[in-house]
């Protein structure tokens, strides 16, 4: 056979191995496959590329994309990524390791997940966090499933229509097939009743408004249901936490903590809850214990909840998590600390309010944020042709003014974009 860098077998190796097995050719290893099913001939695929051909092909694909100055959030935020993070996360001991079932040779993974869980608990105010979910929207759907699992004989769940559109869409998908009823409402409290298992509300709405959830927990708990809050992890450094609102479950996405935009993934969903519901929390969880010599160590624990043991009795089928992205978040929060997290929120908020005010002064928008508090994301009602507005921004290298279903256009500012870039955006709008 011709040599190939990833396959170490020489012709001599193959001969010797076939001899030990007692068959005469590689084809003989497939003796039990009916002839009808054996693939004949070659795949209709390109011929093998050398490494430099692969590189130049992907660079060509990359060149077909347009890198823009991103002024849209909606669940994916263009924050600065400290150079330490990819340096750590690309260490092969982390990158190429398996799920840490063999705890004796996985203490690195287990320790960072324990740190991650502890940081999620601190950021959300919850007692216990799992080792991560696929993304925010799937975590939200799992949270509502969990509410049903935590209550008896209740199978109705309520979600706020203030949630991000993609969060609502994934929840709709997850709730369509099992025997559960989903209600979407602007006023979720009006939907409460004896059959409601859980309610999911955002901490910041899709228009960017910080939600006032005062009294929600009392009303929801009085009806015997659980309260879940969807939040952006970064903003919890400055906003009232799910625990401070009295929630039972906190979910959301951790992408805003130093994970690149990556055209939508991989990101990392988080899910944390109050102690009482620990046994119903889906996904892997790492716990502390001691080894045979009494040394502190860490293991995957409470596994009896999980799909590989409980099979169809498990709350969720989740198996893989987003471990490496959880490391991404853990390193980010370690670098930032309390001070960095405060600052990053201040920079985004200051930039967003400045952009908001400047855009309003162009006379091309009607305000949508009057009476609403917001942080780094906001919406306006356009008084100009939206397509024209978006095209002008795009031509100037900006991705901004994404239109939501209700016609408003959304903007987001992070610390990555200073006053000069904001002024550039405003100038394009003024020129319309």
């Amino acid at each position, binding site marked *: 056979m011709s040599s*190939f860098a990833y396959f170490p077998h020489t012709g001599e190796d193959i001969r010797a191995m076939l001899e030990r097995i007692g068959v005469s050719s*590689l084809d003989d*290893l497939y003796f039990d496959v009916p002839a009808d099913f054996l693939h004949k001939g070659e795949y209709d695929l390109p011929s093998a590329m050398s490494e430099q051909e692969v590189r130049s092909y992907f660079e060509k694909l990359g060149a077909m994309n347009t890198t823009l100055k991103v002024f849209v959030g909606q669940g994916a935020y*263009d924050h600065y990524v400290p150079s330490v993070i990819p340096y*750590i996360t690309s260490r092969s001991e982390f990158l190429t390791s398996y799920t840490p079932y063999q705890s004796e040779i996985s203490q690195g993974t287990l320790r960072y997940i324990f740190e991650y869980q502890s940081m999620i608990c601190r950021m959300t105010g919850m007692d216990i966090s799992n080792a991560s979910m696929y993304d925010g929207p*799937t975590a939200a759907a799992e949270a509502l499933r969990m509410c049903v699992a935590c209550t008896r004989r209740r199978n109705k769940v309520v979600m706020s229509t203030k949630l991000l559109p*993609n969060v609502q869409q994934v929840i709709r998908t997850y709730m369509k097939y099992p025997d559960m009823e989903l209600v979407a409402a602007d006023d979720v409290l009006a939907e409460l009743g004896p059959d409601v298992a859980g309610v999911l509300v955002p901490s910041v709405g899709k228009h960017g408004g910080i939600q006032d959830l005062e009294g929600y927990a009392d009303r929801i708990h009085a009806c015997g249901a659980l309260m879940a809050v969807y939040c952006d992890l970064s903003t919890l450094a400055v906003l009232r936490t799910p625990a401070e609102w009295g929630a039972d479950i906190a979910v959301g996405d951790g992408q805003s903590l130093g994970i690149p935009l*990556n055209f939508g*993934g991989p990101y990392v969903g988080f899910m944390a809850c109050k102690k009482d519901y620990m046994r119903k929390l889906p996904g892997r969880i790492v716990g502390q214990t001691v080894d045979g010599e009494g040394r502190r160590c860490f293991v995957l624990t409470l596994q009896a909840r999980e799909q590989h043991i409980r099979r169809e009795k498990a709350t969720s089928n989740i198996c893989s998590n987003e471990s490496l992205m959880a490391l991404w978040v853990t390193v980010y929060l370690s670098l930032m600390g309390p*001070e960095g997290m405060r600052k990053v929120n201040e920079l985004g908020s200051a930039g967003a309010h400045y952009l908001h005010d400047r855009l309003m002064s162009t006379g091309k928008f009607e305000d949508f944020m009057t009476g609403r508090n917001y942080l780094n994301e906001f919406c306006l009602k356009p008084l100009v042709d939206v397509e024209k507005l978006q095209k002008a921004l795009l031509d100037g290298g900006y991705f901004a003014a994404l239109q939501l279903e209700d016609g408003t256009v959304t903007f987001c500012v992070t610390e990555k974009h200073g006053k000069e870039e904001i002024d550039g955006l405003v100038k394009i709008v003024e020129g319309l």
Partner: protein
Amino acid sequence: MKYYDRLIFELSHPGRTGFSLPAGDSLPVPEIPAHLRRQGDTGLPEVSEVDVVRHYTNLSQMNFGVDTGFYPLGSCTMKYNPKINEEMANLPAFTGLHPLQPESTVKGAKTLIDGLDKALSEITGMKKFTFLPCAGAHGELTGLMLMREYHMARGDAARTKVIVPDSAHGTNPASAHVAGLDIIEVKSRPDGLVDVEDLKPLLGPEIAGIMMTNPNTLGLFEKEIGKIAALVHECGGLLYYDGANMNPMLGKVRPGDMGFDIMHINLHKTFSTPHGGGGPGSGPVGVSERVLPYLAIPVTSGFHGNFGVMVKAYAYILTLGRENLLMAGPLATLNANYIKESLKDLYKLPIPTVCKHEFVYDGLIDDGAREGVPGATTLDIAKRLLDYGYHAPTIYFPLLFHQALMIEPTETESKETLDAFIDVMRTIAEEAARDPEILRSAPHNAPIRRPDETEAARNPIVCWQPNA
């Protein structure tokens, strides 16, 4: 690997920082009203950049990865993760794209996804893939939702039962349950295959379909798949292919040709993207012609799926090209059979036929002459392997055998690597006879000894507390 006992919180000193942010342009910072503001501290550690780098480097040194050594891990397909794939996924022209950017600005990303879709469709014989699922189990769930959409669209919504063989991966029944389906388990025959006769009476108007993996978790090819497919289709059901065991089929057999209607494939197994200590993965779902109209209906993740993982898998496929893809399956199968044949005199081989990518031993052979063998369990053997610098095989799965040791080498392992592993497995068998205590108390050279898992589960400590 050496033991290192710090947590990042324990390195914290008030006033220390590890961030570097622009000073800002003196724009006024708006005040958050008190009732919306966070009340308590964040409790995050306060550490310098060098603290962070050293801490996580130390943690990494307690970890084993594919780059450290061989993983004989059944059903997990831990193959070498090529470095060019990482470099391509990290190109700023990909990592800097916002998922909601207009089509005209993401043509390269779309071309890449289309190219990967075409390649996977060609390799599997399916018509088209959705890339929303972020993992294998997530793919199963998405695929079963598609199964339900197919039946609902045909006014056949009463089909709410799915047949799952007892050798199936544990995620299959869990995924079926989450998709609102009831599970009917079908037992394997003594030769490890699904019995067509057992299947027949189960088929009827309530059956949505069957979930199978082929080769199954014993590494055996379900050779009656043609008959099974005909029967299931005749009763109005669909066939779901769990792609976790797809690796040995590369170049040889396509699930679409076997009659499967829906399948997922684990890019983090078959297409070499790294496991990252448990994720991120990617579990695209492919469908046959008859399920194609429903492919876009279940929206099971937030944006476009794990794009970064797709880049790596596509780079892998292009590097292999059509020539080497043809060889991947046969070489993986060669490696599995080579180990199987080399140890069957010492390890019990319940099903002694040619296997595919993996095979299962049922513990050590107890021939009466070798004292002490019953005292060494599969767990002990697994832990002793760690001492010799190997990851453990998958153990106690499938559930069909009490002392199951499930071994899957992949095509990226050389004969020398396999020979060394075989030697160690023989040494361990000898140790089990001579001095079983050395197995029972293993590992001896890992950063830690066996942890107390019972204590961890009885009194869970899952969050760091100062002075705890």
